[in-house]
Structures are given as C-alpha cells and as structure tokens.
C-alpha cells in the first residue's frame, strides 16, 4: 500500500497505562494528539503516515511525467487537477504527522536521504498515455481499498486526513477508468497502449499491498491499535475481485494467466507477484528509484532560496509593523 511493511515499535510503557489505552481503542474512541499514547504507537504512526505522505508526493512524478504531453486540453486539465490533488493529500498527511511532534521538514529530509520509504509502485515508469488511465484506475483503485477503512483508524488527525483524501480519491479512480476506456475502445494503436499499461502495472499494483502479513507481529500490533485495518492478503484479494471484471468489461486480455474464478472460495485465484522484484524495488533497485529521489532532492534544494526568501520577507514585514506600533 502507500505505507508498506511499516514496522511497529514495541512499547515499553507502563502496563496499566497501556491497558487503559488499548481499552479506549477497543471502545472505538479516537486518540488525539495531546492524549497519552504509547511511545511505540507514536513512532509507528509517524513512520506510517510519513510514508503515506511521501508516497503521495513522489507519486506526483510518474503522472506528472505526462502532463505536458496530454493529448487534449480537457485531459490535460483533468490530469493536472488529479496530480495536484496528490500534492494536497501529501499536505494533509504531513500535517497529520506533525501533530505527533515531527516537523514536515524533518520528514522531508528523511525521505530525501533515504531514511524513510515511499510506496514501491512509484518506482515504476509511465511509458505510454494509457498509463495515466491505468495508474488512476489500478493504483488509485488499490490505494482506495486501504484508505477507506483507514478513515476509521484510531488516531484522530490521521482519520480526518483520510476522510478528506477518500472524498477526493474516487474522482481519481473514475477519471483513470474513463481515460483507459477511451483507449481500450479506440484505435488498434490505442488498444495496444491500454493492454501494455495493464500488463506492466498489474503485478506492481498487487505488490502495493505488501507481502503476506498474516503471521507478522508488526501487523498484529498495528491492527490491535487500529492503525492497520485489514491484512495485506485480504485487501489484495478484494482488489483482484473488483478489478478482473473491469478488465473484462474493457475487453482487454487478463494480465495474468493464473486468474481464474474459484467457485469454492467465491474469489478469483491469481498468481503471486515476484516478491524478489518487490524487495529489489524496496532496496532502491526499482527502475525509477534513483530518478524519483533525484527529482525530489532537486526540487527541495532548488526551492531553498524561495522558502528562505519568503520567510525573511515575512519577518521583516512583522518587524516593520511592530516598529510602527
């Protein structure tokens, strides 16, 4: 997902307080920034929300790659509005993380020097225009499956950010499907682009949910804290089940010969992605890791004088106003 394989931190807090905290969560209460919380809860959340925020802003890059090549004025406007929303989502999430006592600049620096991760999916390239459809439809579609339940997460600011994000996400998935549908129903060349996009992005989309975590201690703790709401496999299955009929609707070939309806399970069977590829990408060896981080680093470095300049002016203005009073 946008936050993959987030390690939970063991808590060494007072057991009595821990029990009371867990009771609040079990009772469905929201935890707010000034409330007492276990050190591990705070650290895990910073990691998870930070990673989610980073994914949004790194996620601007693969789609931003096509803004200047969008084929019509309307598509250009839709894509730009969509990628702008990703920046907005990153902003909401950074603000949620900031309530936990870490600044946006600190989080940004941890992204830029590789101490924090972002979703593996954004290390894949966007190679043809149909990718803009496929990213909105498959990637945002996968993300929504994770984000909808997270609206009920125990941490108030995270939950509120997710509510805002989810309101905007369905525009993303729908515009994506609309774009790829035009391609799938278009000329042979367009159809070829659509098929290529689905073939290329299918397994990376499945990897977004992360490896199976049924037995993971981190997941168990995070689920008890309600900062993770479902197992990775549950969400992945849900994604496959909702997406396969959509691929068929588009009359595109299924990207995996292993996809078959399993009457007994009431779900589609599908092939497991190549997890060694996933771990390579996580380690920094995906097709675009270096470029993505370089782009973020460049924006940050080139923007330093702008951030400093506007702040210096604000301080001067405040000082002048103060002197005049």
């Amino acid at each position, binding site marked *: 997902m946008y936050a993959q394989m987030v390690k939970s931190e063991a808590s060494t807090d007072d057991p009595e307080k821990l029990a009371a905290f867990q009771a609040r969560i079990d009772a469905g209460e929201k935890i707010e920034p000034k409330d007492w919380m276990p050190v591990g809860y705070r650290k895990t959340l910073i990691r998870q929300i930070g990673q989610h925020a980073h994914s949004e802003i790194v996620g601007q890059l693969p789609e931003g790659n096509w803004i200047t090549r969008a084929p019509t004025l309307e598509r250009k406007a839709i894509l730009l509005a969509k990628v702008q*929303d990703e920046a907005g989502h990153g902003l909401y999430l950074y*603000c949620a993380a900031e309530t936990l006592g870490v600044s946006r600049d600190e989080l940004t620096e941890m992204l830029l020097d590789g101490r924090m991760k972002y979703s593996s999916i954004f290390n894949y390239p966007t190679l043809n225009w149909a990718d803009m459809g496929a990213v909105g439809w498959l990637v945002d579609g996968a993300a929504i499956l994770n984000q909808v339940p997270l609206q009920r997460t125990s941490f108030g600011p995270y939950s*509120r950010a997710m509510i*805002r994000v989810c309101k905007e996400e369905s525009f993303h998935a729908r515009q994506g499907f609309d774009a790829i549908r035009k391609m799938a129903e278009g000329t042979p060349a367009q159809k070829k682009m659509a098929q290529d996009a689905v073939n290329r992005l299918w397994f990376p989309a499945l990897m977004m949910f992360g490896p199976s975590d049924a037995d993971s201690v981190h997941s168990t703790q995070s689920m008890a804290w309600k900062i993770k709401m479902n197992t990775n496999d549950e969400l992945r299955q849900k994604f496959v089940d909702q997406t396969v009929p959509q691929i068929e609707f588009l009359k595109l070939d299924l990207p995996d010969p292993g996809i078959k309806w399993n009457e007994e399970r009431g779900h589609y069977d599908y092939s497991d992605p190549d997890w060694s590829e996933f771990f390579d990408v996580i380690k920094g060896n995906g097709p675009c890791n270096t470029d993505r981080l370089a782009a973020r680093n460049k924006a940050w470095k080139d923007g330093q004088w702008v951030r400093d300049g*506007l702040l210096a002016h604000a301080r001067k203005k405040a000082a002048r106003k103060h002197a005049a009073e």
Partner: protein
Amino acid sequence: MKNEWPLWEIFIRGQHGMSHRHVGSLHAPDAEMAIKNARDVYTRRNEGVSIWVVEANNITASSPSDKGPLYEPSESKVYRHPTFFDIPEEVGAL
C-alpha cells in the same frame, strides 16, 4: 536558525451559512500567505466562502486530563435537552 514556515490552522465557512469549521492545516510564511494558501489548498472544490487562519502556536487547547471535570458535569443536566420534557401532542408546536 530554524527556517521552516510556521504551521497554520485553517477554518472555513462553507456555502450554507454554517460557522467556520476547522478543515486542516498548512504552512505559510505569514498570515496573508496562509489565507492565500488556504484558498488554493482547501477550496479547490468550491468548499468555502470565508477563511480564517490562526497560527498553530497561538491556539490554547484544553488538556486531555481535564476531560472529566470539563465535560462530565454537563452529562447529568439532562433537563437542558428538549427531549427531557413530555409535551402532549395536542399542544402543537413548541
């Protein structure tokens, strides 16, 4: 010196005459830019007609440990709620 733009809390009044409501936060070098940023960040979908910004540092919040003394006393004052009173239907609107 730390050069991060301060954090601002954003309150927006929507179309329907409701009070300003907290919608989120953002960073800006000063109040004027905070209002502009709020316009760009939080009203992209036609959400508002009026914006308030408050620097996050300037907000004084109640303490969670005061929750009991602050809010529980009002729980027992059920007579403050209109549903406390049984009014015969034939009396009409009240």
